[in-house]
């Protein structure tokens, strides 16, 4: 494998990783602050993608699409939190899983009803289309670089928000001790709605950004949701830092595994097609094997608090 191909794959892995981070960050925030496991997080990702595709197709403006994605996902998040989710905080995990699974069904079928079963396409804006030549002569799509930069910027913003702002203090207080935030005179139900909407907006943004390089369709959210779960198990639940490290690990290992394992097996197996088969089958399992390793060595995750 050439160095150029390798670097390209590393960049692809980074791009995948930062997207996963946007998903995992919202999930882990909501779990950390409210103790809620939310399966419908993938639906918010889908809503972001659909909003972006619809608005940018209507206006011809990608930025407007992106803004619409953030707004639509945040609004959907806030509405769902107020209508359903807040009844679940005191319930056990089974009820949370079932109710949010029910929400997936409602959102998915509802979207199918409005938009039909055919995928939508979100065009990459002119400014960001085409390749750019990186130092070392590597050609790489501008849009993917843009995603990496956006993802990293949002990650930095999120770390700043949690470390430095008033909302961040409230979030950390909520994670440490749910009784305490009431004692501090914080309006808990408002805080919960805001945190949930924030997580939803992050998911919606991920959906919109990825929507331009994949098709926008019903059911696009759940595979990403499950990868975000893998990320959280690896990183440790409730930890933004864990989500960040976990997401980059999953993104890089999955992407590199898929290109490299077939090559690795090809180097010593006589039958080329068998090597590709075994290599790609194994590659599809790689991150789950990593997750299994973490479950054995550190069941609370790399950055999770010890139980």
């Amino acid at each position: 494998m050439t160095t150029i191909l390798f670097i390209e794959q590393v960049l692809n892995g980074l791009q995948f990783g930062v997207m996963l981070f946007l998903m995992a960050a919202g999930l882990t925030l909501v779990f950390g602050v409210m103790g809620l496991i939310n399966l419908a997080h993938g639906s918010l990702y889908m809503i972001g993608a659909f909003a972006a595709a619809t608005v940018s197709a209507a206006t011809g403006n990608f930025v407007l699409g992106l803004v619409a994605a953030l707004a639509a996902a945040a609004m959907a998040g806030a509405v769902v939190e107020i209508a359903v989710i807040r009844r679940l905080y005191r319930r056990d995990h089974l009820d949370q899983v079932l109710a949010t699974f029910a929400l997936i069904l409602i959102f998915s079928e509802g979207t199918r009803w409005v938009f039909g079963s055919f995928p939508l396409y979100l065009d990459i804006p002119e400014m960001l289309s085409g390749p750019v030549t990186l130092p070392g002569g590597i050609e790489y799509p501008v849009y993917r670089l843009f995603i990496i930069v956006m993802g990293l910027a949002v990650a930095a913003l999120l770390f700043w928000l949690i470390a430095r702002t008033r909302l961040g203090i409230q979030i950390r207080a909520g994670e440490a001790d749910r009784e305490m935030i009431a004692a501090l005179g914080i309006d808990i139900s408002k805080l919960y709605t805001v945190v949930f909407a924030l997580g939803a907006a992050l998911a919606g943004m991920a959906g919109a950004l990825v929507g331009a390089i994949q098709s926008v369709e019903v059911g696009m959210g759940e595979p990403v949701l499950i990868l975000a779960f893998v990320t959280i198990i690896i990183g440790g639940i409730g930890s933004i830092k864990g989500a960040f490290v976990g997401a980059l690990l999953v993104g890089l290992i999955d992407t590199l595994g898929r290109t490299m394992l077939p090559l690795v097996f090809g180097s010593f197996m006589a039958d080329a097609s068998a090597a590709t088969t075994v290599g790609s089958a194994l590659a599809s399992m790689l991150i789950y094997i990593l997750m299994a390793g973490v479950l054995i060595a550190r069941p609370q995750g790399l950055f999770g608090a010890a139980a």
Partner: protein
Amino acid sequence: MRRETIINAALAIGLLAIPLWAHVTGEIFTITLSTRVAILALAAVGLNLALGLGGLISFGHAAYFGLGGYAMGILAFHAQNYDPIFTWPFVFAGTKQMLVIWVVALIVSGLAAFVIGMLTLRTSGAYFIMATLAFGQMLYYLFVSWPKYGGEDGMSIYLRNDFPGVNTLDPIQFFLICYVLLMLGIFVSWRIARSPFGLALQASRQNAERVETVGITPFRIRLAAFVISGMITGLAGALMADLNRFVGPTMFSWQTSGEIMILVILGGVARLYGPVAGAALFILLEHWLGGVSDYWLAFVGALLLLVVLFARGGLIGSLAGREVAHD
């Protein structure tokens, strides 16, 4: 007699009587629907053991359902193509015998449940849910990327497998096979619920620390329950594959896991016949709502949401009241 016992009897008799009557009147489709109910109920009986008695919220039971399905698919695929699965130390050409297929399905899904259980039962709460979901997805991707057995498209088995003395292609006879296995599954879970093991399992759900202080290890109890649970669901997968004469990776999908869980919840968690009630309700909804709207799953979602928020006992809970068997 307790009310729940009467409901259970009605469900058992109803599930038998409807297809028999359909057989007499020649309504094949009703027999097929009933067979689906029996098979899905069996899958849910498996999950109910882990979820209802053990409180283990597995969102990855599709793994065992799929493995059971592929156990059938792979064995029959090799048999129908005269392509031996392995030739050493002896030639094994695959098989079309249901009895052999079931044993393989039970073993494979039991082994998978053992390995996945060993890993996931080290965690609890939200971690356990996410980890079981993830391992289910892992198997989904594994079979999608395995072209020999159909990859994304799955594979068809042209003729239904054989059972000694039964014409399995006759819908009513195949239904009866599934029905007997369902009743066996219910019997097993009934005995387990009342056994010392069942007591320890239910106690581990409610207060694991207390269970430890009387000298029982909750982890092992849960693992054993998880394995039995996976095996029963795996057997159901093998039957479903035979009903459809087709296996595909969607058997492993997270939607399948969710559906098996819905059956348990709609029927009533930890109720002996909850899975039967849930499966019957689900198939009826699919049949009725599916006729009204292509988006019928949205209505199932709304119903599920209402059950979770307002009617936690499920169907049998609403009909039989809160009391749970304690004999």
